[in-house]
């Protein structure tokens, strides 16, 4: 097995990022600015953990906590009273709950893509952002997992989704149902992501252990498993990381494919289509990268990480967004084409209804946020403006939430029989649980920023290795 973390090939660059040196050879802006030494990296990354929380952090944390409390009250009321507190009806059985579920699962995908797929492709720019992107994955999957559970109405019976020996026969779960595949896909995804994140953090936890005193030293000493940085351990560790990345890559593709099967294996017009798995996976990556940008543009400012999360990282992520956003646009067109080409009147109606029916506004929000707005990122000026990128990342998140809402609600409100058509509007309780999801996500993320190293120190140290060495090894 070959090396993993210090990449030998130069990161992919588009001509826009390359300026010319005096001798005509291209130079690329550095990934890490400020001429950092390994000791600087340790000091800078550990600084937010070692100093007290700033006022800005407390402000953000209390705001997130307030949203979370709104969610707890809404969900608490819903569980105590029943699903009737939601705006669902006998025609529209899924709406905000499953929209939120699919939205949050999708957010998680960018973390795995950055940590696993870019590791396999040896992209150096992943090293400053992989840790926080993976944390984002884990918190997003936690948010995602909550919604199907509260959607059950009786969440204390949620363990029924697992095939455990029971005194009803035993009556097993239905392994032929896409909903059960979800249980296994999300369960495996959460477990593997959490372990991958933790394993990737062990050397950094050891660094904190060796700097800390008192209680923090004890906790970090326990968590870092006695890591000593010996060459044999490093060799084995790196191979393990590549293996986990190689497992996580097909896993992440399978997770949203399985989620899309919840819809695609049914016969509801607008859901019953084979384009769903790739369409969902690419949309997940698209929305996830937007969320990574939202979080990191704030974090780099608040945590003073501007030398580590540089313009080059932001540019690279913008390019992924343009690329995936364009594929999402292609998927929307493919859906329309297939609906027309199928000759199936129900399928054709489903899409006409989406575009011009009573909920057409949500379709056009989706198209303008997801397909039109990311096209601005083709312009270098836009990619280089932090404010513009931040706004676009928010717009894309809104668009991707609406994508799931459009798919779920417009298809359900008007299916085959006009006599069973119905409308749907959310109640305040549903809006409260949507808000609470964001509250939970940001609360967890802010806590993570305070207690764990947000940047993979050992990987950044490997990236800033002496230039002479790099050219000797890589011949680039």
């Amino acid at each position: 097995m070959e090396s993993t973390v210090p990449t030998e090939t130069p990161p992919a660059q588009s001509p826009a990022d390359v300026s010319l040196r005096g001798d005509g050879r291209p130079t690329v802006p550095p990934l890490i600015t400020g001429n950092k030494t390994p000791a600087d990296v340790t000091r800078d990354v550990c600084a937010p953990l070692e100093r007290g929380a700033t006022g800005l952090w407390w402000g953000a944390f209390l705001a997130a906590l307030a949203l979370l409390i709104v969610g707890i009250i809404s969900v608490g009321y819903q569980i105590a009273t029943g699903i009737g507190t939601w705006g669902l009806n006998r025609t529209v059985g899924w709406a905000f709950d499953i929209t939120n579920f699919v939205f949050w699962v999708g957010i998680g995908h960018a973390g795995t893509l950055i940590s696993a797929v870019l590791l396999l492709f040896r992209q150096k720019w992943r090293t400053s952002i992989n840790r926080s992107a993976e944390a984002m994955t884990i918190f997003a999957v936690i948010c995602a997992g909550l919604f199907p559970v509260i959607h059950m109405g009786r969440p204390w019976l949620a363990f029924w989704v697992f095939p455990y020996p029971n005194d009803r026969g035993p009556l097993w779960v239905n392994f032929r149902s896409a909903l059960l595949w979800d249980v296994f896909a999300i369960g495996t995804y959460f477990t593997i992501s959490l372990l991958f994140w933790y394993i990737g953090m062990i050397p950094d936890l050891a660094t904190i252990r060796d700097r800390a005193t008192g209680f923090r030293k004890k906790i970090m000493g326990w968590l870092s498993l006695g890591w000593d940085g010996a060459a044999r351990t490093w060799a084995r560790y790196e191979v393990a990381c590549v293996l986990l990345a190689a497992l996580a890559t097909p896993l992440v593709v399978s997770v949203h494919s399985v989620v899309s099967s919840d819809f695609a294996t049914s016969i509801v017009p607008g859901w019953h289509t084979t384009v769903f798995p790739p369409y969902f996976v690419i949309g997940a990556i698209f929305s996830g990268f937007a969320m990574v940008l939202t979080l990191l543009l704030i974090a780099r400012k608040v945590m003073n990480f501007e030398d580590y999360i540089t313009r080059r990282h932001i540019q690279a992520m913008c390019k992924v967004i343009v690329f995936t956003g364009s594929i999402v646009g292609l998927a929307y067109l493919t859906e329309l084409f297939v609906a027309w080409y199928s000759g199936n009147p129900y399928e054709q109606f489903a899409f006409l209804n989406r575009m011009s029916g009573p909920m057409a506004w949500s379709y056009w929000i989706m198209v303008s946020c997801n397909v039109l707005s990311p096209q601005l990122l083709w312009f270098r000026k836009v990619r280089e403006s932090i404010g513009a990128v931040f706004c676009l990342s928010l717009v894309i998140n809104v668009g991707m939430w609406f994508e799931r809402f459009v798919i779920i609600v417009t298809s359900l409100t008007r299916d085959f029989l006009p006599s069973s058509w119905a409308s749907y509007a959310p109640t305040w309780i549903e809006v409260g649980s949507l808000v609470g999801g964001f509250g939970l996500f940001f609360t967890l993320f802010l806590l993570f920023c305070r207690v764990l190293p947000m940047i993979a120190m050992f990987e950044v140290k490997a990236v800033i290795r002496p230039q002479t060495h790099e050219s000797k090894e890589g011949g680039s």
Partner: protein
Amino acid sequence: MIHILHVAVFADETSFLSAARACSSKEIEVVNAYSPYPLHEIDKVMGIRKTRLPWVTLVGGLLGLAMGLWFQYWASATSWPLDVGGKPWDSFPAFVPVGFEMTILFAGLATIFALIVRSGLAPGKRPRRPIERVTDDRFALVVKRKTGALRWPQIKELLSEHGAVDHWEEQA
């Protein structure tokens, strides 16, 4: 039997690697090396063999696949055969997603388990390294003199020549 080990500490990767190469060319065994980030060059100097971890992953994955498919078949066709939409009881295509997830889960868990056990990592274990700063910005070599090779003062000189910022003797 008591071995005398020599420990040398370096402030940068270049001098650390050149010292390690010099030692191995002078019949001085590099027993261990510590660094704040992975350096593959040191593997060659120390003669670290390729890990067999991928085989553990493969076996874990195959086991997960076999268990996943077998359990679904057993539960759906033997233990309580249930007619779902007229599908046959042994509807293997429907069992593929869960079988796949079990493959990944078992392979991942096996890999992590093997990594932790083989590297001797454990919660609360006391780390054994020459100085704490190897997890920050220092590099350390632990070398052992082979019979007939250089004497300690000469080893000390060699290490200093290659930029060791500190060195001392230890008994192991």
